[in-house]
Structure formats: structure tokens, C-alpha cells
């Protein structure tokens, strides 16, 4: 899976949790840039991403994640 495919699948996970499409995800996107992305929805998004990619994140990786770029590289490392 290339990076663009990962990003598009991640975007689908965001849309499904947040129930809106008013955002564009890039490497630099953080929670502050997306309406509704906060502590709670973050946990739901993480669990949604895990299901869609059939992977399981490690708490240690999630703990230091700060933007979409970080999320994508963790996904890449798990695939």
C-alpha cells in the first residue's frame, strides 16, 4: 500500500468517526485543524484505523504521536 492509499483510507476512518467531511488531511494536520477531533474522538479514530487496516497499535507509539504524518508512519511500520 502506498502512502496515498494509506492517507485515503485514514481519511475514510476520520469521516466515519467524525460524521463530516470538512477537512483535508496532510502530514502536518493536527487535532487543532479538524473540527471534532479531540481526546475522545481520537480514541475512536485510532480504533477505527486499527480495524480498517487490520493492525494493532502499540501504546508506546500512540503516546508520542502528534500529527497525521506520525500516524501514517506508524501505520506503515505495522503493515
Amino acid at each position: 500500500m502506498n502512502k496515498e492509499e494509506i492517507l485515503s483510507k485514514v481519511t475514510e476512518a476520520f469521516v466515519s468517526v467524525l460524521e463530516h467531511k470538512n477537512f483535508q488531511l496532510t502530514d502536518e494536520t493536527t487535532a487543532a485543524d479538524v473540527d471534532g477531533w479531540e481526546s475522545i474522538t481520537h480514541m475512536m479514530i485510532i480504533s477505527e484505523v486499527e480495524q480498517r487496516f487490520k493492525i494493532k497499535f502499540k501504546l508506546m507509539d500512540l503516546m508520542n504521536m502528534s500529527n497525521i504524518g506520525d500516524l501514517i508512519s506508524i501505520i506503515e511500520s505495522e503493515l
Partner: protein
Amino acid sequence: MEFVKRLQESIEKHSDYNVLCINSTFYTYKEFAKEISKIRTTIVNTIEDSEKLIGLVTNDDLQTYASIVALWLEGKAYVPVNPEVPFERNAKVFELTETKYVIDSSERSIYIDCKVIASKELLNTEINLVPKEFSGDQLAYILFTSGTTGLPKGVPITFDNVQALVGAIDAEPTFNLEPYDRCLQMFELTFDFSVVTYLFPLLSGSCMYTIPKKAIKYFYIFKLIKEQKLTVLTMVPSIINYLRPYFSEINAPDLRYCSFGGGALHSEIAKEWSDCLPNCKIFNYYGPTEFTVYSGFYPYQKETDTKSHNGIIAIGAPQKDTLYLIVNEKNEEVGIGQTGELCLGGPQITPGYWKNEERNIQSFFTREENDKTVRYYKTGDLCLKDEEGDFLYVSRADFQVKIRGYRVELAEIEFHAKSKSDKKVNMVALDITNNLGNAELGLAIESEPFDTKEIFDYFKTKMPDYMIPGHVRFIKEFPHSINGKVNRKKLKEYFDIN
């Protein structure tokens, strides 16, 4: 006031210890004492003695915590407002309490209708932590919770109330904080649970670790447990529900105490969580804002003390000087094993809702017991008492739900939804359980689909984030029960969120 005097002694005695860790920066009790003194001097010089209720903008910084102590040394109450909550709601809080002065550490204060004390820009003064003499029936703080009529409800708490709380916790031999303790302080200061997470560490010279407002709370807590080796956790149960998928990676031998409160703690998860904390005592606390944070607890122990009802861990027995009473609809005591509304009496009870006589008549009553008149607060929680004298939570008696520990009246959400929408359609707010076992809010609208942006934009001006529904469903016709009421249980089935 004894506990304020003890605060002074503790802050002086532990001057070389750390008091707070905020965003990886440590502050000592000495630095804390300096900030308190600066703010206190300004209070004395600018605020007239008769002005007792002082606004406080709850930023995550040393000055905000120092402001609470400074106000208490002067016998004044803090009226906290969260800077992330809509301005209109906060302005309403100040209007209801007739607050004229606001202590604000923000770079620029938006509370221009009040006289603002900019607590980050004060000049150094001599350290003075000696409390003023004042009467215990003065208020120590007022907190606002969700109200059914669209207006938040004020809960005033007196110094005597807080003193009774301190006395009750002191009387509990199994819980003792030490200066080496590292304690989680994850609560917004507008949430009453925060009172125990700052007050007890301060009285013991322990260090508090806060959560930066932008952090993902759950992971940040884990980071603090792991990297800072926290020894004391005080949390709402929803935190561990979210961390549950990662329990296998958590092993925290440094933790001594873990207290839960502000929501139902489920047996299964309590057991699994307990496995992550091999040296930790777990307490399941109970108590509403109206009764000064805690009224009692159940000491959970995964092998020996696991009492529960419908999978929810017991709330145990009342603490020192507190009375629990379970009543029927006529406020008469019911027998052992029978479900009724839990009522609380004793010195921690609030004097009553702020300027809300109607609500006070509904929520408080008095009862003659052994030639004494005891005043009780009706919690709205349905409970039962077992033969060993332990109390068990059954359910809510009304439409109040807990979202991440915060009390939310579903009627308040419905009130705002209906007052904004020009479409005359029925809207019902619901609590829905997600696949991690936490409650989320949904809004069911009896209509063909339409754009709800206007309603949600309006919500954002009226309610804090946690009260804004995350899910919307349009339903052509609401299901009704036999007696004609909207069937909320059936409605919830439309919210397939997992």
C-alpha cells in the same frame, strides 16, 4: 479556618519540593508561595472586603492554582470559568453570581465587563501566607453544572463544607499522601472532582501533574505514569475504558492509590485495570458536587472486595459524619435490599442551589432523627443498601447522564436545539454507549434530513464541547411506548455507532 491554616503550613514546610508539573516544567512550593503572595497582595489592594465572589479563568498554569489559595487566605470564593467554554455561558455564570472581579492569567482577558486582575503581570511582594480570620459559612467556591431549563445551576460550597471533607479524608487511615507522592491532576478546575486532586496534594506537600489542554488525555496520562512514575491517580472511569485495548502494555508498580469517581465503575474492567497496578489500592468514590466532592467510597480489591450490582462496583459506605438514606417517592426510608433514591446528609451538604428556590424545594428536605433535624440532598441516583451496610448503585432516576464524568442534563441540549431551530420538529438527546463502553451523545430529529449546521453552530455558543452531540439521526416518526411517551430505548437503536 483550619484547613486553610494547614495549607499555609504545608506550603511553607515543603518549600524545596515540587508542587506542580505543567507541560514538563516543574514548579516548587517556594515559587508557588511567591505567586500566591503576589496575587493576594493585589486582591487586598484592589478588591473591597465586601466583594466575596471572585471570577477565575482556569488556565493550566501556576498562577491559576495560586489564585485559589490566595482567595482562600482572604476568605473569598472562586467562581471558575473554563476558557474553552463559550464566552456567553461563562458571562452568564458571572452575571448570575454578580461577579465584578476576575483573576485571569491569559495574555488578553476577554472579560472586559469585569475588573480584571492579570495574574501573570504582577509585581513581586513579600511572601505572606498567614490566613485572615473569617467565618466558616463564607463560600469557598461556586461551581456550575448542567441545568434542565437551559441555564446552568450554581452549587455554592462553604469553607465549613470543605473543612468537613478534609476531616473525613483525614479520618480514613488507608489513604495518606506523602511529600514524595506524584499525583495526577487531570481535571478542569470547573469540575468539582478537581478540588480533591489539588487540595490533598497541597496539604501533604506532594506534586501534581496536569494534562496540557491540547494533549490527547488518555495517552498523556499513560505517558505520565510511565515516564514520571506517578504514585497517585484520581480519575473518572471513562479513562480506563479508553485505555482498555492497551492494558496488556501497562504495568505500573509505582502506583500506590487509584481513586475513581464521577461515574459507574464496572467490575470486569476494574479487575483488568487492577492487574496493571500490582501495588495499588483502588477506591471507588461516590459523591455529587452538592455534597463537596466525596461522600463515601468502596475499597475495591480484585480478590476479596468485588461487591457489585448489575456489573457496577459498589459505592460502599458513607465517610465520617456523612449519613446515607434511601427513600421512596414520599421521602420515607425504604428497607434493606430495596431500591430507592439515595439522599445525603451531614456537614458537607451545600447551603442550596444559587438563587434557585424552586430547585431547592425539589432537591432538599429535612427529617427528624434522634431529636435532631437533619437536612438531606436528593441525589437522583437510585441505589440499594445490602445487609452489610454497603450501598450499591442501580441507575439514574431522571434524564441526567454522565459524559466523561461531567453531568449533562439531556433536557438542556434539547432546550437549545429547539430554541434555535425554526423547523418545528421534535428533537431528543440521547446517551449512546460506544464499543469501548463509554457514553456519547446523540441527537434524534423527527424529520426528513436537513442541514443541521445552524443548530450546531448555535450549540457551540451555548454549551461546552462535551455537551454537543457527536451523532445525528433523522427519523421520520419516533417510536412511542404504550403510554404515549417517546421510547428512548428504541430510539437509541437508530444510532449504530460501533
